[in-house]
């Protein structure tokens, strides 16, 4: 019989098969997988897909210059780690370094040159053409050659090859000033030159054979030296190892170094000089120094009939020092003794990013202590080192001198150019501002982001961001020998970015290219055939002589390599003036020592003493990955500049409550802060970070960074380690 299909049959068939499928796993499994894999909203970014590679470079965020290994996808770094065996960081990175590859995506990144106008609280930017900016500059520089004031260039990263270029150009200029941040090591070693009969030159530290470090508020365990130097100390902190390095931290602030040090000696703010004298007093009183050497080395140690170092020191008996510094006299004595007993010892007195410099006299006092401790003797831990060789035409006499801010008369600068590749050593704008000619000066900054000082400029020219730029890393102060490495770009720079050098070259009507400059430098170094080279790829170090050509050298350096100079054996004989060579030295040192701490200052009960602090590369927004909120906002590990920390007793006295908001006020302004109570903080003081700022962008408008340092009264600004302010409930 013929087979006939009615519609009914078909329906039956379809219905049947559907029913059938329902009892098989197929539809359910399908639904299941769908439910699981359709769960990410389309607005959630998809992760990049592509070739995975590894490349090397050097971190330029801070003077340490750590080797960086970058894992890249499509050539874009997505994870950074330290280069294995690298002499500077030996495979480690600091938190800022770990997230450094985000800086190219900083929310305040500039795409074009802009004109900046500061409203109250916020900033408006107007895109302008590069030519406009250059025209403005040429007009202003025209003025600044004349009576209209001088041309100053603020170099935020001194010591680079390009810095030499700047100084050379400025030297040619009639009113050129080469300006650096007051915390810059160069200025601090200048103090030593002031003491030395003949210039001492660059200073280096030989920490390998140190057993005791006496740190005067220097962040020795938190960014002062290189990771390779500090990691061993940190690793053995709580171990019972005999020759483990002992760190004594003298600090008014409960800083990270104070927390990590083996001993923390809190002292009244701004009395470092007095304490240095006090310790020296004990050493001399108890004859714990090498009389033979001191006698020969120190002209002003004991001058009959004249105020001499010993007279000065004589005044700072432990008891008197104790009065001045608040450190108990037996601590002073025991410290002095252990420094000698547990030698070799070294006293470190650099300033720090947040607190700024200690002040010239304090520095000199500390150097004096070092000499007493024999740290500058031939087997000592403070060494004289050579600079990395420089190309022809960059010898020091061809360069304009390095100036600190205090050396510049007020209202004298007509044109201020800022090379704002900011290492996180802040320079309070208020200080800078009073050096400018009011209403007639022009400030132009070269910076990748609209952060830090760039926010105060009238014009900002965008430069390549970190890991987009080609730059060199000068020797870090803590290094015993000269080093040289290059931070080669890992990222392609976007359109419209100009290297600072090109702008400056145009200003000085000359030619200048970063690459050429660095090639000259490397050739110069290579030519000396000195030192050895670290190869990032293999993690090995070879003598430079093993490299065939400058180009090969260049290739190694641009691939995350590093050059290290040979140490110099012979240490020429030096004579030091313990008080410096200035005619009024005695009086100045005395005043510095006898200076009254702000803590004991005019007794107005509502006044507190503000102690700014801050980690290098975290103060100022320029080097903050957006992800750094993890550290200072999403966890309390690092404190942002919006948090004021007080001793519970102090908080109680001023009835301020943990977790509440407060208003911090000085004559120069106010700032809103969150109050935090911490039993470890010195009574009567407010510890507050000079950064980081929460990333300054609310929607489309840019919020002005409000750095605590802006509240400093410029008259009593330097050094700004401590200043008075009121803190009341918001």
């Amino acid at each position: 019989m013929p087979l006939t299909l009615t519609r009914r049959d078909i329906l039956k068939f379809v219905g049947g098969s559907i029913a059938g499928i329902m009892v098989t796993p197929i539809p359910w499994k399908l639904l299941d997988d769908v439910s699981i894999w359709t769960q990410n909203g389309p607005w959630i970014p998809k992760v990049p897909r592509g070739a995975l590679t590894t490349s090397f470079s050097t971190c330029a965020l801070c003077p340490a210059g750590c080797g960086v290994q970058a894992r890249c996808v499509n050539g874009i770094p997505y994870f950074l780690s330290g280069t294995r065996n690298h002499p500077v960081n030996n495979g480690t990175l600091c938190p800022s370094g770990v997230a450094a590859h985000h800086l190219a995506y900083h929310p305040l990144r500039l795409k074009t040159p802009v004109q900046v106008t500061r409203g109250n609280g916020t900033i408006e930017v107007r895109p302008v053409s590069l030519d406009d900016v250059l025209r403005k500059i040429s007009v202003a520089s025209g003025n600044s050659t004349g009576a209209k004031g001088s041309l100053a260039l603020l170099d935020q990263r001194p010591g680079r090859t390009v810095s030499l270029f700047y100084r050379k150009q400025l030297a040619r200029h009639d009113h050129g000033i080469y300006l650096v941040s007051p915390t810059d090591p160069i200025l601090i070693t200048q103090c030593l030159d002031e003491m030395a009969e003949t210039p001492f030159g660059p200073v280096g530290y030989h920490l390998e054979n140190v057993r005791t470090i006496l740190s005067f508020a220097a962040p020795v365990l938190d960014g002062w030296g290189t990771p390779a130097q500090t990691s061993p100390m940190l690793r053995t902190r709580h171990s019972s190892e005999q020759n483990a390095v002992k760190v004594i931290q003298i600090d008014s602030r409960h800083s990270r170094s104070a927390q990590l040090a083996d001993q923390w000696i809190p002292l009244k703010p701004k009395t470092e000089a007095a304490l240095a004298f006090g310790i020296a007093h004990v050493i001399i009183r108890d004859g714990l120094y090498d009389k033979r050497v001191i006698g020969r080395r120190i002209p002003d140690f004991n001058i009959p009939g004249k105020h001499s170092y010993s007279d000065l020191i004589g005044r700072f008996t432990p008891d008197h020092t104790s009065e001045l510094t608040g450190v108990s006299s037996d601590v002073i004595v025991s410290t002095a003794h252990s420094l000698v007993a547990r030698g070799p010892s070294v006293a470190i007195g650099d300033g720090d990013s947040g607190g700024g410099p200690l002040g010239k006299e304090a520095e000199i006092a500390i150097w004096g202590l070092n000499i007493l401790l024999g740290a500058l003797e031939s087997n000592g831990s403070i060494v004289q080192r050579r600079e990395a060789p420089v190309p022809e035409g960059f010898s020091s006499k061809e360069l304009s001198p390095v100036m600190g801010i205090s050396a510049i008369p007020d209202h004298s600068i007509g044109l201020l150019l800022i090379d704002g590749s900011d290492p996180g050593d802040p320079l309070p704008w208020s200080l800078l501002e009073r050096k400018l000619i009011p209403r007639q000066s022009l400030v132009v900054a070269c910076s990748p982001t609209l952060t830090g000082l760039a926010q105060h400029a009238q014009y900002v020219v965008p430069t390549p961001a970190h890991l987009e730029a080609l730059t060199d890393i000068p020797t870090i102060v803590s290094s015993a020998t000269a080093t040289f490495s290059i931070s080669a770009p890992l990222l392609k720079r976007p359109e419209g970015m100009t290297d600072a050098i090109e702008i400056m070259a145009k200003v000085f009507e000359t030619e200048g290219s970063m690459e050429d400059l660095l090639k000259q430098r490397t050739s110069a170094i290579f030519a000396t055939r000195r030192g050895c080279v670290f190869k990032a790829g293999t993690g090995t170090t070879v003598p430079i002589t093993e490299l065939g050509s400058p180009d090969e050298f260049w290739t190694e350096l641009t691939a995350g390599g590093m050059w290290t100079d040979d140490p110099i054996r012979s240490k020429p004989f030096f004579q030091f003036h313990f008080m410096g060579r200035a005619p009024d030295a005695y009086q100045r040192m005395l005043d510095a020592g006898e200076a009254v701490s702000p803590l004991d200052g005019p007794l107005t009960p509502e006044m507190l003493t503000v102690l700014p602090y801050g980690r290098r590369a975290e103060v100022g927004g320029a080097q903050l990955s957006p992800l750094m909120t993890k550290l200072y906002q999403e966890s309390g590990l690092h404190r942002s500049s919006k948090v004021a920390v007080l001793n519970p007793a102090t908080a109680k006295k001023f009835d301020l409550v943990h977790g509440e908001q407060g208003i911090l006020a000085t004559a120069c302004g106010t700032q809103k802060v969150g109050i935090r109570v911490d039993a470890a903080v010195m009574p009567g003081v407010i510890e507050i970070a000079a950064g980081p700022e929460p990333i300054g962008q609310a929607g489309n408008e840019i919020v002005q960074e409000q750095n605590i340092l802006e509240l400093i009264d410029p008259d009593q600004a330097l050094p700004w380690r401590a200043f008075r302010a009121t803190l009341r409930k918001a």
Partner: protein
Amino acid sequence: MDKHLITRGVQRSPFWKFILWILPWGMLLGWGLYGAYLCLAEGLNQTNMDNRFAFGLWIYLDLTVIAFGAGAFFTGFLLYILKRHELKSVINSAVVLGLICYSGAIAVLMVDVGQPLRAWFTFWHPNVHSMLTEVTFCLTCYLTVLILEYAPIVLKNRQIRKIPSYLVFEFNLHKLMVVFAGVGAFLSFFHQGSLGGLYGVLRGRPFAFREELGIWPSTFFLFILSAMAAGPSFILLTTWLVEKLSRKRLVKHETLSYLGKLSGIMLTVYILFKSIDTLIWINSTSPSSGFPAFEYYDRAAFGTWVLFAEVVVFGLLPALLLLRKRFREHRGWLITSAVFVLAGVALNRFVLTIQTLALPTLVFDEFLSYLPSWQEVATFSLVIAYGVVLYSVSFRYLPLFPQERELAQSY
């Protein structure tokens, strides 16, 4: 105006009065909806909950209203299964209250979870060892049951009952109510318990953690008991409230006092076991996990007074009052003790939800505080307003209190 909708033979206030009463609640409802909308659209960053205080006002609300709503299953169980006919006069009201509490709780839960659209995963990949799974399954089933129990009441509306098909369906549905009562009782037993288990199993929170009896922590059973105590009191209180507001007699006093008695008995049993449980917890469970129990009450905010209030003031006291006929007969005492019972259960839920999270676990943890944001409060009040509106409407148009007509005549 809406007379033809109102049950024959009962007096209801004029329509305009009714509107005046509903209006403010309606506004509250609107505000609540807005708050809930923000939480759904913008995410839970609208709330003041955080990683440390991951549960807040809402979970507290859920636990409390569900405890109060227990009246529905308990009364149903007693009426249809144990044939306690004195409860016939409040069963309808009880069902409406139950429906309000449960639907409200579930609505809030949907706002509370970060991904409401994935809520069905719980059915799809259930982790049968999780108390929350148990709760989810039971709640959804029981809500269905409540709707089925509510349907007949709706169909009894004067106009709707005129439609033969509805009435006939209602008639047959009502005949099968015993089944739903049974299922309801079964489900409620489990989810009330699981809600207690929710915290009892938190090994990481020794303040809440309790030893297991069988496969459930003791709180599982304590919650069932406390819910059974709270349910009748809640019905009692609402009925009394409605009588006051509508100025009518709705049920005989015997009914109320019977509810009171139920509450009293359950509460006594609950308090007994609660005390035993607390002693075991203080002396064994908590210390053995490294947490000296007294430390929980070190905090100014939550001193031992909390425990005292929970067990004695709002537990033992009302229990004793309700057990004595003399007090039950007296309206004032009856109502007061009912209020105390509810306060006690509410406090218990508060302690378990909020205090548990406020207390530190790690030695270096801080004692946390939490204040709900307005969006949370709004969503909370959404449930309250929704409840009042639904109840008012039901009371006006549906025969919630069968005795009302009779009592009206026996005046």
